[in-house]
């Protein structure tokens, strides 16, 4: 862990609402995107001369395209319900990180140019001209929002700051002030197929290596197929799963589950990314371009189902938006939802008793579960509301003997973001990421001390990367974060029958029964 020139917040016994400290995070802003990352996405290369004019026109356009934005900008009554709900406020104490204050950076400008009261009596209603300082404030503080939607749970009108920060980021990108981290990644994913920029040969090589590792360890030839035509399932997973720890252990878990299920599957090099950073910058068009790659891959490979790996915002885009952006999926098997989450796939097999586990393989760990924000508050799993909470926990309980939940305010719909979501998982925002993790770290400390929890499982690539990085700042070890399918991978009893890898599900069932 590197030495830092800022103070790491202290973990308290109970959550405390901090006193405001003005401009505490005014110095934190990510790198601005250069021309080469801006133009491919359809944005101006650098700040345009008449940027005020362009920005205001864009604001007007967006309020006519998005009902959410239009209603949310008008409806806030400044009641204060959201003021203590943002993890970035709790971690940084900067008042502009209170959700309503963050929204007001945008709302005050909207009022100035689009409402009668703001035009006539700006001071009275807090309306503000769009000046260079305001634009800087936007850039600073709309990149201190991870779009986790926690504020929207507690707002009496359901105002979601994520919608406003997405709009603000789109306005900024349009005038030529986009964010480097997101825009560079979107460019890579749109041309190479994944956020890491891995070309097909590198991907094939990596997967081959995994096959060898798993066979060496288990004696079973678990396959990691790539670009195989005519399979039942196309797996779309975050590219971090191919390399990073503990992500890759999750990928091994998916492969073992597919192996045991007997369902044929493949990944695609063309659509080798579940993440969709187009959402983070509020760009429907860029989000759609990325989503269409998945549709094209599914058609090209002739698969019947689409399953997504463990990734939070990716699951939001997949579950809530994919059908909208890239549907209709009438060419896929109508017996299954499109898309499915790997947890739904695994949970289904567990509930049908088709997987065998040796739970004691996970006895060296006592687990808790971090509900990833976008899965918790912007998606669902299974048929019933709240399935996104029960399915992963069911899987953990099926594969582990020791599990405890964190305090109620910090889980399920009240879950805290890891601190790195929403396009903020970049080294130039490290201080923000460390401080934003505070509420989660406090909750983890609680179960560590009271229940002897040693590890925290998650189903999001961003959460996993973020925690690996920030856990040490709070006195934990970086490997205390694990993938849910890593637990599955540890506990699953593989069928030692080469023939079990088959396209025929019935045969596979027999094989499981024999085992």
């Amino acid at each position, binding site marked *: 862990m590197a030495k830092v020139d800022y103070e790491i917040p202290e973990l308290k016994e109970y959550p405390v609402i901090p006193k405001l400290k003005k401009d505490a995070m005014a110095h934190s802003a990510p790198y601005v995107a250069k021309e080469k990352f801006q133009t491919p996405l359809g944005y101006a290369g650098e700040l345009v001369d008449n940027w005020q004019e362009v920005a205001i026109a864009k604001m007007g356009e967006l309020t006519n395209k998005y009902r959410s934005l239009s209603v949310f900008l008008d409806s806030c009554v400044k009641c204060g319900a959201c003021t203590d709900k943002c993890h970035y406020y709790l971690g940084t104490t900067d008042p502009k990180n209170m959700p309503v204050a963050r929204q007001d950076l945008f709302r005050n400008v909207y009022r100035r140019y689009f409402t009668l009261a703001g035009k006539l009596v700006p001071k009275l209603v807090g309306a503000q001209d769009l000046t260079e300082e305001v634009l800087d404030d936007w850039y600073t503080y709309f990149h201190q929002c991870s779009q986790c939607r926690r504020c929207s749970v507690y707002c009496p009108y359901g105002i979601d700051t994520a919608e406003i920060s997405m709009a603000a980021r789109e306005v900024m990108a349009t005038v030529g002030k986009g964010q480097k981290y997101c825009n560079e990644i979107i460019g890579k994913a749109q041309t190479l197929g994944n956020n890491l920029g891995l070309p097909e040969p590198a991907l094939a090589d990596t997967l081959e290596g995994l096959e060898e590792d798993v066979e060496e360890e288990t004696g079973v030839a678990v396959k990691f197929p790539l670009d195989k035509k005519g399979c039942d399932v196309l797996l779309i997973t975050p590219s971090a799963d191919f390399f990073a720890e503990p992500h890759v252990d999750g990928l091994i878990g998916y492969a073992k589950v597919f192996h045991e299920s007997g369902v044929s599957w493949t990944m695609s090099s063309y659509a080798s990314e579940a993440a969709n950073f187009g959402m983070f910058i509020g760009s429907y068009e860029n989000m759609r371009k990325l989503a269409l790659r998945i549709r094209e891959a599914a058609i090209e490979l002739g698969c019947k189902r689409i399953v997504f790996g463990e990734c939070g915002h990716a699951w939001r885009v997949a579950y809530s938006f994919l059908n909208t952006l890239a549907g*209709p999926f009438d060419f896929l098997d109508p017996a299954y939802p499109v898309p499915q989450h790997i947890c739904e796939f695994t949970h289904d097999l567990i509930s049908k008793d088709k997987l065998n586990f040796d739970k004691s393989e996970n006895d060296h760990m006592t687990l808790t579960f971090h509900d990833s924000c976008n899965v918790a508050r912007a998606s669902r799993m299974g048929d019933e509301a709240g399935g996104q909470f029960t399915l992963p926990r069911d899987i953990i309980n099926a594969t582990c003997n020791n599990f405890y939940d964190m305090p109620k305010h910090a889980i399920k719909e009240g879950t805290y973001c890891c601190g790195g979501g929403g396009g903020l998982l970049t080294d130039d925002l490290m201080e923000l990421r460390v401080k934003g993790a505070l509420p989660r770290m406090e909750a983890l400390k609680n179960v560590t001390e009271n229940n002897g929890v040693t590890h925290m499982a998650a189903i999001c690539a961003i959460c996993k990367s973020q925690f690996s990085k920030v856990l040490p700042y709070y006195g934990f070890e970086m490997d205390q974060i694990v993938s849910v399918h890593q637990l599955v991978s540890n506990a699953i009893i593989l069928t030692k029958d080469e023939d079990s890898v088959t396209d025929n599900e019935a045969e596979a069932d027999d094989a499981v029964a024999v085992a």
Partner: protein
Amino acid sequence: MSILFAVLFYFATAVLVLGVGSRIRKYAKTPAPLKIPTTPAPTTRRGVVFRMIKELTIFESLFKSNKWIWLFGWLFHMGMLLVLLRHLRYFTDPVWSWVVFVQPFGKYASIAMLLGLIGLLVRRIVVDRVRYISAPSDFLMLGLLLVIGGTGAMMSFVTSADIISLKSYLLGLMVFDIRYLPNDPILLVHLASVAILMIIFPISKLLHAPGIFFSPTRNQVDNPRERRHVSAWAIKLEQK
């Protein structure tokens, strides 16, 4: 005075109806291109209706958030609702029987309404977070409502207004017949503040009242996989 207030009320009513109407039209016309209900969300239309009813009657989300704001906000809104219902008796002749029933509750509800408003004002001043996010208009809005509630309660509990004449005046206004309006300063302040509130309604945060019905995070059904949801402008992208 009768004519002045008649003009004021016709103007205020026109602004309120046309202003709020045009905002509602804007909200209804603006598409919601993506499914964004805050989950867990109902998976059926009926479930959404139930969710909205809970938001409107018990302020469910606010209750989850902060018990003080909930208490004051709920007291104020429910108090105001009863008070408003009670006021129907000035606009109906004969008075509907259920309004007669509400009458005594409505009278005391004004106390709840005032307590709620005072609680909200104290929070706005005392809690540093809420003070930070308050614009002058936020204080003025509470002040205006306190004036309306205060003068109203005074006429109920302290002084007494010439209700018979007032009712005749209001019934007259409804058929464009301007009758005698009692020249009672408390009543006139009460009426003038109500007119101001009606006028600023469509250009202020009072738009939260129609807004909540259009809030996509609350009114959308969680069924994106089952039903394809595409807005008109997004369909145009597909045709490119």
